[in-house]
């Protein structure tokens, strides 16, 4: 940038000699000035350091989320550019030498090593019903996995939704103080329950129980997984709906009661509808939790990649697939990339659901009550 020469400004600021006030302006008393100055910038190193430390912690967590995001997508990306690690050409490598073999022992004839069909991966092969990644002719169709995740999530929400919402309605409107103070922490402890414990309980006890009651063909199935998952989802639905119900202004309840409505009518027809956006957000957060949960479904759903309409067939979910297969996959090959793509898919789904839930709570609920 060029600095322009500043022209003289004769019209502004009369020369001091023409000032009607002959006496020069009295400087303000020096003491207050000094006081103001000393109070303005008290540099305290300790405080500064703490402030910066807290700030950097916040920034680090943001950066970490960003890095995870980048990493997951970067690992999945080569699927779409066709730059998946080409499998090493199956050159005939010599056999390993053996050690300590007794020549007299009857030998075991094992099948010769079978070659995997290493055709180039096309993104379109992600669209298909068949998930057979370790087959000799690998198939990476995601439909059955997606359907599995949706089935389990749907069942979990159908159970956890009503339970969580009505429990919240009870504690926020009807429960005596002692019950409220006992129930809220109790349900919230359920949220901190390790999901592997829930899964194990479902695998060993709940599955047999439900099979005896309903006579399922398959002992482990989407329904068992969904019921177990409901245990993990109830606390989320409960906590968020309870907050939403408590946020409904007291005047609405008072007005309704004053008009002669009973407490049940008030709760069901006045308070519950006013809290709808918050409850909707609760359901969406519950959906996100159920969709991403791994351990429970890995243990309780049977893990068969079936694409059927029945809710009592075994299913394999997206998250359980990652959980089961990631540990042994060959680093960098197609299967590895597809698993990362599944991870990216889960990430995007839960990210957008959280965004939608946030939007509903922030905008709708607040607008409704503040009349904006």
């Amino acid at each position: 940038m060029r600095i322009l020469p500043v022209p003289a400004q004769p019209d502004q600021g009369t020369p001091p000699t023409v000032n009607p006030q002959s006496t020069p302006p009295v400087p303000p008393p020096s003491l207050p000035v000094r006081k103001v100055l000393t109070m303005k910038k008290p540099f305290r190193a300790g405080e500064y350091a703490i402030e910066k430390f807290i700030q950097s912690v916040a920034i680090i967590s943001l950066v970490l989320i960003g890095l995870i995001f980048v990493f997951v997508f970067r690992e999945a990306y080569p699927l779409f550019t066709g730059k998946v690690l080409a499998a090493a050409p199956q050159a005939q490598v010599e056999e390993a030498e053996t050690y300590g073999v007794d020549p007299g022992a009857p030998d075991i004839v094992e099948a010769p090593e079978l070659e995997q069909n290493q055709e180039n991966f096309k993104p379109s092969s992600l669209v298909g019903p068949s998930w057979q990644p370790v087959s000799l002719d690998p198939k990476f169709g995601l439909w059955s996995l997606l359907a599995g995740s949706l089935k389990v999530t749907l069942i979990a929400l159908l159970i956890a939704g009503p339970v969580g919402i009505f429990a919240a309605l009870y504690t926020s409107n009807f429960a005596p103080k002692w019950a409220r103070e006992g129930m809220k922490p109790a349900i919230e402890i359920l949220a901190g329950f390790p999901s592997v414990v829930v899964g194990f309980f479902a695998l060993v006890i709940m599955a047999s129980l439900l099979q005896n009651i309903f006579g399922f063909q398959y002992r482990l199935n989407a329904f068992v997984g969904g019921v177990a998952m409901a245990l993990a989802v109830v606390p989320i639905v409960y906590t968020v709906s309870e907050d939403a119900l408590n946020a409904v202004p007291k005047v609405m309840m008072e007005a309704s009661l004053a008009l002669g409505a009973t407490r049940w009518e008030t709760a069901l027809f006045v308070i519950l509808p006013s809290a709808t956006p918050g409850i909707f957000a609760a359901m969406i957060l519950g959906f996100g939790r159920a969709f991403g949960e791994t351990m429970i479904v890995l243990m309780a759903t049977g893990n068969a990649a079936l694409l059927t309409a029945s809710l009592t067939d075994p299913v394999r979910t997206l998250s359980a697939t990652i959980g089961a297969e990631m540990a042994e996959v060959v680093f960098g090959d197609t299967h590895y990339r597809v698993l990362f793509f599944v991870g990216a898919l889960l990430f995007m789904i839960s990210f957008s659901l959280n965004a939608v839930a946030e939007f509903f709570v922030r905008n709708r609920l607040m607008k409704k009550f503040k009349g904006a």
Partner: protein
Amino acid sequence: MNKTISAGLGLTLAAFALATAKETITVKGSDTMVILAQRWAEKYMATHPDVSVQVTGGGSGTGISALINGTTDICDASRKMKSAEREKLKQRFNSLGVEVPSARDGLAVYLNDASPVAELSLDQVKDIYTGKVSNWKDVGGPDAKIVLYGRENNSGTYVYFRDNVLKGEDFAPGMQSLPGTAAVVNAVSKDKLGIGFGGSAYAKGLKFAKIKKDASSPAYEPNGETVKNGTYPITRYLYMYLKSRPTGAIKNYVDWTLSPEGQSVVTEVGYFPVK
């Protein structure tokens, strides 16, 4: 005072040095073999206090990649090393690896105790697991659907079964994959219509199907004799893999596992000796 302190310090340091001077052998790999490997390690360390054997599981694939990366001395595997893996080992260490068949395992086909089916031919097992046969009545059972249980696709047992029993065909999509042989055993023991597969060491509370090589040959149950003389048709080796021919402490350990004492541990755990 000072002297005692320094003497004590010296003693601790010396003890420390001694502890670290202890020869350490790391063993990693197959989950099928992890019980066997641990039992071997315990017994060996009891008689050889100067050697420490550290055993971890994780699966055959995990063990082999650890061997390739040089993070383990011995790798346990329930399947043969693949040529791609041997190729990697060769690039890294200029060695194709050394294979030590250290036990035999009869891969059992599990049936529920209440199942009326007693024997199956290999072809029938194949048809059941590929989904060609889905009703028990086709293989001599009641008129009811067959419920398939199997292992996750990352296990050596899954790959062995696919290559040797299914002859490379895919498992039926309806097969329920369970994490670990114990889970398969548990599921089949609770499911009257269930069928599963896995090592014969694990089975409690269910029965083994007798397996026929083909429709006309006699059926054998996996037991010490049939697995040892090779008449049981689904028999495999359990291997230890090394980077190079063993020397020193590792050689002593490997030789011990193949000795009558080591092989008696194999029988205790429920597998079958190689000698």
